[in-house]
């Protein structure tokens, strides 16, 4: 069996077309070098099915397979799904730590320590006012000053408390807006559902919609930073997503989107829910109220033991911490009692209260400040930790899926040269046929 004279032309044409596709893919990679979530693609080239000649192809009459050039087998998306899994787990942690650090940071700012406006300074001035009153117990200026200082101390407690309440409220608001119908979680989920549908149509037709899959992976990354996300890939190219709790029913499956149960959200949502919950900022408020109560009770205790009217009033209604918010001065400059007796210079009570400086109220407040500071420090440390881990996984992922321009330039030259060589092969073939068709058998003409 003989082989067609034009066989080689077809082989070269295949080469030309395949190298052109490879060049196109390289161009696509270069164009998307800085596209977020893009995975590099490659045209998988493979030898085209050979022309099988059953017999008589070679000397001795045996058959042979004659190569017929190259074909593009697939356009492959270079990506490691295991790294995606790792990245999303880290992104969930990072989202949680970042939101926690942010909230605690704001709470720490509300304390305004160390500064001239902090509670520590106000307390110190309050004790100082009692000592000044002890030095001149009947002086109306000293009395007025004491009541003023006490008022600004109570005000400082209330301000810090309301700032804390604001931080908790903001966390609760953000949580609500993220999870509400039409919120970010639902938006992302709906986009994923839409992409699932499109991808399924292509995959069942045997196609691989690489760029759509990249888009979906990017959305899943975003979702993972909001809350714990677990993903099951189906054969038809779609993904089922369980969000915000391992045992919850899936948020996205074949039926589309269902609102997530959020039993244990993790991620940013988890941190926000914790901050707004009883173990979050509310525990700060409770501790602040405990400090305020210690302070008020120590002053009132000394006064009431001597039969004098209490200095501070507050509402203590557990479980909510209300002392810091409701602390107020119950006496006026005229009714302050610096001494057990009502004689003008009687100052034994003022002396005793002045001695409270540096006592229980101060030390419990200082310890409280240290606790708040440590928690912020710890949260920041964990955030930095999670960030480092996330960056490491991100680097590994980039290493596999990212576009390297140098590499693409190399490929560009490789495929260009192959294209040039294929066309040279084709023109050689052409020349050969030219000789055969136009010059052969013209002897004597």
């Amino acid at each position, binding site marked *: 069996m003989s082989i067609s004279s034009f066989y080689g032309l077809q082989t070269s044409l295949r080469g030309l077309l395949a190298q052109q596709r490879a060049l196109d893919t390289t161009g696509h990679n270069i164009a998307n070098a*800085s596209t977020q979530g893009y995975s590099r693609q490659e045209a998988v080239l493979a030898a085209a099915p050979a022309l099988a000649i059953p017999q008589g192809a070679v000397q001795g009459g045996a058959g042979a397979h004659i190569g017929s050039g190259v074909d593009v087998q697939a356009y492959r998306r270079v990506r490691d799904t295991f790294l995606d899994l790792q990245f999303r787990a880290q992104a969930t942690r990072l989202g949680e730590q970042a939101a926690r650090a942010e909230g605690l940071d704001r709470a720490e700012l509300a304390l305004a320590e*160390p500064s001239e406006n902090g509670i520590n300074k106000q307390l110190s001035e309050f004790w100082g006012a009692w000592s000044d009153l002890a030095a001149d117990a009947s002086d109306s200026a000293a009395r007025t000053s004491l009541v003023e200082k006490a008022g600004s101390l109570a005000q400082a407690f209330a301000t810090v408390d309301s700032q804390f309440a604001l931080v908790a409220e903001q966390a609760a608001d953000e949580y609500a807006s993220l999870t509400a119908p039409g919120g970010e979680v639902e938006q992302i989920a709906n986009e994923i559902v839409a992409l699932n549908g499109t991808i399924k149509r292509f995959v069942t037709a045997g196609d691989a919609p690489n760029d759509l899959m990249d888009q979906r992976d990017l959305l899943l990354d975003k979702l993972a930073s909001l809350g714990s996300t677990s993903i099951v890939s189906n054969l038809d190219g779609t993904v089922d997503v369980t969000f915000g709790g391992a045992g919850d029913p899936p948020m996205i499956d074949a039926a589309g989107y269902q609102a997530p149960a959020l039993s244990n959200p993790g991620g940013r949502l988890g941190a926000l829910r914790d901050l707004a919950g009883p173990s979050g900022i509310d525990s700060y408020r409770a501790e602040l109220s405990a400090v305020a109560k210690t302070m008020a009770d120590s002053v009132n205790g000394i006064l009431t033991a001597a039969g004098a009217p209490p200095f501070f009033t507050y509402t203590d209604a557990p479980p909510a911490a209300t002392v810091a918010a409701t602390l107020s001065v119950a006496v006026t400059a005229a009714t302050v009692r610096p001494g057990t007796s009502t004689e003008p210079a009687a100052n034994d009570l003022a002396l005793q209260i*002045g001695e409270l400086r540096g006592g229980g109220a101060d030390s419990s*407040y200082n310890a409280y400040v240290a606790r*708040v500071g440590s928690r912020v420090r710890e949260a920041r440390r964990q955030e930095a930790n999670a960030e480092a881990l996330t960056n490491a996984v991100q*680097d590994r992922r980039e290493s596999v899926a990212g576009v*390297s321009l140098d590499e693409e*330039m190399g490929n560009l*030259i490789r495929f260009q040269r192959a294209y040039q060589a294929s066309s040279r092969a084709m023109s050689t073939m052409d020349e050969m046929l030219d000789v055969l068709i136009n010059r052969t058998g013209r002897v004597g003409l």
Partner: protein
Amino acid sequence: MSTRITTGMTQRNILADLNRVSERLTRTQEKVASNREITRPSDDPFNASRALALRTSMEGTQQYQRNIQDAQSWQETAEVALSDITGAVALVQELAVRGASDTNDPAARLAIADEVDELIERIKQNANVTHRGRHVFSGTATDTPPYAETPDPYVPAADAYNGSTAAIARQIGPGVPLDIGVLGSDFLGGGPAAADGKLLHVLREVSQHLRADDGAALRADIPRLEANLDTVLGVRSQNGARQNRLEAALGRLAQVEESTLKQLSNTEDVDIAKALIDFSSQQAAYQAALRAGASIVQVSLMDFLR
């Protein structure tokens, strides 16, 4: 598999490095500008809380110093009055010795008695001395003069002590109250009406005996006067001892304040030399990172293909 370094990775890492270095730079700059090692409790929770405690104790020390200074001027006021009272008593003693001599006729004794009465008024005025409008010798009843003005004609009740018998205390150190008041009743007494043998009672009797031309009684009064002068001197020396104690406490508190201030500065103030060195080395690191980043990003295979 060797790591592929992709363009995005390089850019991201350069940016992350630059951010890290410039964050450190900003932090150091903040330290230098504020001169504070600790600007927020989370910078160093333990030392932040320590700094708060030190600040409280320093303000306490300053308060004690103010208390002492106030007590000192209070005591000085008392001392001036007591010293004048001592002088007046000594004069009365002299007059009594002169009057006791029987060479005096009744008219001369009457003249001496007038002089004694004047001195008694001087003593009572001194006893009513005030410090910033507060009566020094009336115990805790500082708004009441300890002795009323002597009416004309004289009644014994006019010499009654009107103050309180409760002492006034000042806090001069943590847990150290000091009585600073001198009670008028302790050395001046309540006059003839109280018949307590104290200064005013004896003085009034001296005046009475002079007017009564009773030489023998006058001679008996002299040792009683002397005993009362001793009492006044005793009160003065007690006052002086208190002033010494205040002086010593003030010196000690100044030392405590200085050492607390030093500790506070060690805890929360920035070591400027160290911070500046940190600053310049971080600045150098930042510039190096910028330069390295710029040259890495610029170079690509395209520069060499032609």
